[in-house]
């Protein structure tokens, strides 16, 4: 179709000049896998740490003394109303001024856990408010101690109610972990950035990274749905 023109004009090329070369991506499979595993590791640590933190915060928020309650409310509001990147920069670049030096990976995990904890506290609180008051009164009447009531009656049911919301938050955490490359932590986005800047095949690497994130997000959802089934459905059909 372009033959006659090509002969007359040696520089003629069709408009779409970018030629995709996914072979280069295949050459770097090992690095990408390493990056994806690092992302999963950061997400898992962040989610588990954040959930423990949130459970503690929710308990203290309902049962703790007034100053502690105010501190927890402030924590939740600060985390939910500031950018995650800024939180990370404070952890990584500002703490050394106070004599606390964290490695990039430590700062990343701490940042993810603190951030996830803030959101999860709010989610769990909404779940606890949804537990009928009558059950707590009944548990008290049965003579259960406050911590036992909190653990067996409140948290269990609240957790079940808010589980879908928490699961979505974990996926948001997984995708949000891409930001920690800004403080030199190694994960999928950091490795993709390095690879694309070394090979200049930006589109190929970002496409593949996006596909890996998509896969990891679906896998995370599937794993969390199985956990829900194990914890709340299996053996309780009756």
């Amino acid at each position, binding site marked *: 179709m372009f033959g006659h023109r090509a002969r007359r004009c040696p520089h003629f090329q069709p408009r779409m000049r970018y030629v995709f070369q996914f072979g280069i991506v295949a050459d770097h499979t090992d690095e990408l896998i390493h990056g994806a595993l690092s992302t999963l590791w950061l997400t898992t640590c962040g989610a588990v740490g954040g959930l423990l933190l949130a459970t503690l915060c929710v308990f203290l928020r309902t049962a703790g003394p007034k100053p502690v309650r105010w501190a927890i409310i402030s924590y939740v509001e600060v985390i939910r109303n500031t950018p995650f990147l800024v939180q990370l920069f404070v952890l990584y*670049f500002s703490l*050394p*001024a106070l004599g606390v030096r964290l490695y990039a990976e430590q700062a990343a995990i701490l940042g993810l856990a603190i951030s996830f904890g803030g959101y999860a506290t709010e989610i769990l609180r909404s779940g606890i408010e949804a537990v009928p008051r009558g059950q707590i009164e009944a548990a008290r009447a049965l003579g259960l101690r406050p911590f036992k009531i909190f653990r067996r009656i409140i948290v269990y049911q609240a957790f079940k109610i808010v589980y879908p919301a928490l699961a979505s938050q974990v996926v948001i955490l997984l995708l949000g972990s891409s930001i920690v*490359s*800004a403080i*030199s932590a190694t994960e999928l986005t950091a490795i993709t950035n390095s690879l*694309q*800047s070394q090979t*200049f095949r930006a589109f190929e690497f970002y496409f593949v990274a996006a596909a890996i994130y998509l896969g990891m997000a679906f896998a995370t959802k599937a794993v969390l749905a199985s956990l829900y089934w194990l914890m709340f459905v299996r053996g309780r059909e009756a």
Partner: protein
Amino acid sequence: MKRLVLIWALAAVVAAGTIMTANAQSALDRILKDKKIRITAEVTSPPFGILDKDGKPDGSEIATAQQLAKDLGVELELVQVTSPQRIPALLAGRADVAISSLSITLDRAKTVMFANPHGALSIVVTAPAGTKISSAADLSGKSIGITRATLEEATVPKVAPKDAKLVFFDDIGATIQALLSGQVDCASFSAFAAKSVADRNPDKKLENKFTVTTAFYAAAVKPGDFDLLRFLNTWVWLRTRDGTLAQIYQKYTGVELIALPTF
């Protein structure tokens, strides 16, 4: 079936027609006709590109871009990019020319077309005065802050010993912070960036420990934009001869421009 073939044939003719008319106009023609040139602006690399007090792009590469637009007699549209996005922005058609201290390397030359260089820069390793480093071998056991998609990333890992810890950041601001907060023992920058960081933070007593390499940077265009490239080369030659480029360079870097090679 026949109708389907006809529709496809028609679609192919229309598509080919669009492609041909679009291509008949060269990049230079388009710039002159639209009276507008889009040039990349990377504003986190002092003294090449920074944001001034009013948040407007400034720096030697911004001034070079302004001079180019002025000489073409067209309006300048600065396309703000991050350091790793300089080449992708060009390839994606977001910018006509990249003027963002892109040093000329073989790898980059496989993806974009470089004009003749209009500036030079050295890569140095910087650390506080108390840190004992005088050559690449002394980096052994130390952590080095490096900015991704820069000449530092392309050269420092090659000279650093195996047990040096290379710490990569996405933008130079983070690398500077890492050096200032002590998260890394030393960092690699262009000589001017190092000077600017040292001047702004006299209490850290930063000094250049050794020069890793000296490189030349140039404007770049998308593969195939030969007319625009030819114009850029002519422009660089003229503006080098009359001293305009050297003036811009000296104004922003405080260093005299060395003789520029051509190719």
